[in-house]
């Protein structure tokens, strides 16, 4: 591999290193200088986690060839403050609780630092615009804006330093705004996620993935890849010593495809090599013979007789059906004055945690197979892996590394098995870090739902019966589908007291990317339908949206759709709180926005028109002159 010499100043220290000509500045900082505060969130300049200063200008280091920075002065998150200290801005992030998973935070701190360097008086609109290239998936940005405004005011002297550094004395710790204990490590970039970790002798893994949605695997020839210099091993399903299957409810997915592939992107083989480039090159040398099979991409098509069968055990491609029957819906609809029926649909959604999947596996001195990864379920993963690799459970160890966002997406054991197999085969540490594209294309999504909902109402708005049929695309493997169907069914018709309920949720196998656990686990899809429906009914019946909800809300002692008797029910309390806080003006939801008088009040922002700094710059000049 050709090399070029790179000389630059990083965080005040001169560096002279040999670099690969094509390496990105991000790779150089992380791999050569071990500065892992800049993270790779997307590799395509779309998320901002890799932001660093180059000659005083903030740039995205994943978009900059390292050689471009030759001779430049670089400042990374590690260099913002003296060692062991934090800048006022970093301390303000700590104070306001601006970090959650923390993965976007070094980049966010850099962008905010740049914003305040460019304009120490930037207002909130300008701050927002200057953070516009940095994605945060956890916080909703609110606490980040608070932090930047607080730091701005302390740094420009409008507020004393105590505004950042002093907290109210707590009388009790439960109920107090105790600062996040993990925030300093996140705002300083010192917290190491799995992809930031290395071990001596560590190998790099890359995964060969299916190009077909549904195909029989006729053969896999790894010999050429194994012969490539620098390749330590190739693993396939043949390396699995035990019972090969994982999933959250049914263990229907092999560590790597065996016999057939069921979705595009399914793992087929994995290479562990001395470096990433060699591992990637080796993937191209693995020969897989496929015989394509008819595939099905729509759950309604998949349910039809004669549809391609994706799993032998699942007739009609049904993963799980959950029925709920309470009262008698036919009687309920007969009592109704108005019956409203509609079909709603929700899309597949990506978790988009800023930390792509990553893991590091090794076999320790006692022969314990150890997998370190941002797993949301180390308990279950250990159970499954012990069966898969046929080892006693105390010879399998899972360590949960810092999780750079999960939202349910890191509950599935989709890559830890491959790492364990390669570590066992090579007896060396093996690391795998997903690219963003790999993370998006191959990991679980929120289940897309098609929900038919029929609800009967009396003239006064009282619900007499509700019938829901929801069909969800579960994709190629079971993962959490069963649980999602169950939760969707239980929550289906919302927080309402309904005497007659009939609900059916069905999760269906297709050859799409698998659906899995995602924050609300089916709860939001069905309640989107029900809550849209409540407004439709309010409009038809001439009621205010709050009014129809109060009328039907569960109250203390209510019996749920699954016939559970509740004791205390806070449904009307939260509705009252929301109505009061929003200063809601009552009326029929018939598109009356133009006539409302409750708009634009406290708790709203201005619409974003972009260009805040173009308008603001003039103002600050005036302000500075006055001062």
């Amino acid at each position, binding site marked *: 591999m050709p090399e070029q010499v790179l000389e630059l100043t990083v965080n005040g220290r001169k560096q002279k290193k040999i670099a690969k000509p094509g390496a990105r500045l991000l790779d150089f900082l992380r791999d050569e200088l071990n500065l892992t505060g800049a993270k790779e969130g997307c590799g395509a300049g779309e998320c901002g986690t890799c932001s660093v200063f180059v000659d005083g200008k903030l740039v995205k280091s994943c978009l900059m060839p390292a050689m471009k920075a030759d001779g430049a002065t670089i400042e990374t998150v590690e260099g913002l403050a003296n060692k062991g200290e934090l800048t006022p801005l970093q301390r303000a992030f700590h104070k306001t609780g601006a970090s959650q998973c923390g993965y976007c935070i070094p980049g966010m701190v850099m962008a905010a630092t740049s914003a305040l360097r460019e304009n120490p008086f930037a207002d909130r609109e300008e701050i927002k615009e200057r953070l516009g290239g940095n994605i945060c998936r956890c916080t909703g*940005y609110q606490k980040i804006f608070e932090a930047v405004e607080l730091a701005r005011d302390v740094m420009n002297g409008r507020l004393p330093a105590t505004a950042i550094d002093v907290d109210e004395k707590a009388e009790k710790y439960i109920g107090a705004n*105790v600062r996040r204990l993990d925030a300093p490590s996140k705002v300083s970039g010192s917290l190491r996620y799995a992809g930031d970790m290395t071990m001596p002798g560590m190998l790099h893994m890359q995964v060969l993935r299916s190009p077909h949605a549904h195909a029989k695997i006729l053969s896999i020839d790894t010999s050429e890849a194994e012969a490539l210099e620098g390749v330590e091993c190739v693993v396939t399903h043949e390396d699995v010593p035990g019972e090969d299957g994982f999933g959250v409810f049914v263990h229907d997915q092999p560590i790597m495809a065996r016999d057939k592939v069921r979705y595009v992107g399914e793992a087929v083989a994995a290479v562990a090599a001395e470096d990433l480039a060699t591992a990637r090159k080796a993937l191209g040398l693995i020969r897989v013979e496929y015989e394509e099979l008819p595939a099905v991409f729509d759950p309604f098509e998949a349910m039809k007789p004669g549809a391609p069968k994706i799993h032998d055990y699942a007739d009609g491609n049904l993963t799980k059906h959950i029925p709920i029957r*309470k009262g008698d819906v036919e009687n309920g609809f007969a009592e109704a004055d108005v019956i409203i029926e509609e079909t709603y649909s929700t899309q597949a959604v990506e978790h988009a945690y800023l930390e792509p999947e990553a893991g590091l596996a090794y076999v320790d001195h006692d022969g314990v197979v150890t997998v370190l990864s941002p797993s949301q379920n*180390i308990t279950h993963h250990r159970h499954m892996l012990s069966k898969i690799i046929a080892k006693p459970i105390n010879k399998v160890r899972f360590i949960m590394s810092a999780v750079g966002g*999960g939202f349910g997406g890191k509950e599935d054991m989709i890559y830890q098995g491959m790492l364990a197999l390669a570590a066992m085969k090579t007896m060396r540490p093996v690391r795998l870090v997903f690219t963003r594209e790999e993370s998006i294309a191959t990991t679980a999504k929120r289940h897309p739902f098609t929900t038919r909902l029929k609800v009967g109402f009396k003239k006064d708005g009282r619900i007499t019966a509700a019938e829901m049929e929801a069909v969800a695309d579960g994709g190629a493997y079971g993962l959490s589908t069963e649980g999602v169907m169950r939760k969707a069914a*239980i929550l289906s018709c919302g927080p309402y007291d309904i005497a007659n309920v009939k609900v059916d949720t069905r999760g269906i196998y297709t050859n799409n990317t698998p659906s899995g656990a995602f924050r609300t686990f089916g709860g939001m899809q069905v309640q989107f339908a029900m*809550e849209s429906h409540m407004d439709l009914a309010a409009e038809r019946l001439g009621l205010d949206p709050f009014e129809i909800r109060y009328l039907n809300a569960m109250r203390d002692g209510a019996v749920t759709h699954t016939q559970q008797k509740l004791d*205390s029910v806070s449904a009307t309390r939260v509705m009252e709180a*929301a109505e009061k806080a929003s200063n809601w003006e009552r009326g029929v939801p018939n598109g009356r926005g133009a006539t*409302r008088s409750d708009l634009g009040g406290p708790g709203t922002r201005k619409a974003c028109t972009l260009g805040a700094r173009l308008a603001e710059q003039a103002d600050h000049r005036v302000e500075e002159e006055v001062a």
Partner: protein
Amino acid sequence: MERIVRGRGVAASWYGIARTATIDRAGAWVEIDDGGTAKVVTGVTEIGEGILTVLAQIAAEELGIKPEQVTIGDNDTARAPEAAHAGATRQTYMIGNSVALASRDARTKLDREIADHWNVKPEDIRAFDGEIWAEGSNLRMSMEEAVDICKKRGVVPVGSGSFTAHGTGLDPVDGSGSPWQAYVFGCQVAEVEVDTVTGEVQVLGMWAAHDIGRVINPRGVEGQIEGGIVQGLGQALMEDYRLENGHTTTHGFAKYILPTSLDIPEITSILVEDHDPRSPLGAKGIGEPALVPTAPAILNAIHDATGVRIRSLPATPEKILAALAEKRARDGVREAAE
């Protein structure tokens, strides 16, 4: 129609806490350590929601020390007791309660020794913020001294806790059952602006009232609500993982569109505390429930502003503009008929 129109919408929601339709469990160990500090060990940890801080607050409160004096050892199946998984809005409820129980267990052992040392009844011992004292007396010392005394008496003050949530399975025929022992409710109001030239929606304000049981860390709860709302907003308006014959067409963040700092509303959180009677802490949870009502509140607000109802998510500018055109045509036909 005006170029810019505004409206509001509301949606209510409910949710269950911890694993569904099954018995849920979590375990923890606690040691009151030298210097009046503490070690808490449990099997599952932080995914960004702030559970480490919540556990430190719980342990500090129960043990009578400061949160920063708590060291949490966690996240390792070979070193820590099982806490199951990080999900299902179960962290505060399951692990929080198991840490509370373990802390109480450790305190019982410490209190017994200190009560004996002072010759008072163990139930009169109190502790907070690194100080321990006997109620109704002037007996008081630091937690550091108390641990030292306890150890000199030959006792290491350790405790363990296991917390159980009793959900039951659903009947396979009628679905009846008690899937959770704790429920939470929520309600959100959205205010939107719709640009009728482009179909773009800007969410300008959200008011989110959520019952979370007893609040452990208000700022942390707000953070969960704010994050949940922005994920809900993303699903309502822009996020869309697309496939063509099984191949994704949204490979990266250039195509898979996420909300940025410019897309988000002002958010007002209202925390309603309906304490859970079935657990030591009375806390419930907020992680998942926060985003349930967001999308329907926004979509109801879009209808309020424009008179068009979008039934399929996401409500992209294109979909809204098409619906507006359709509505104009429909209204035109109606007017012509009249």
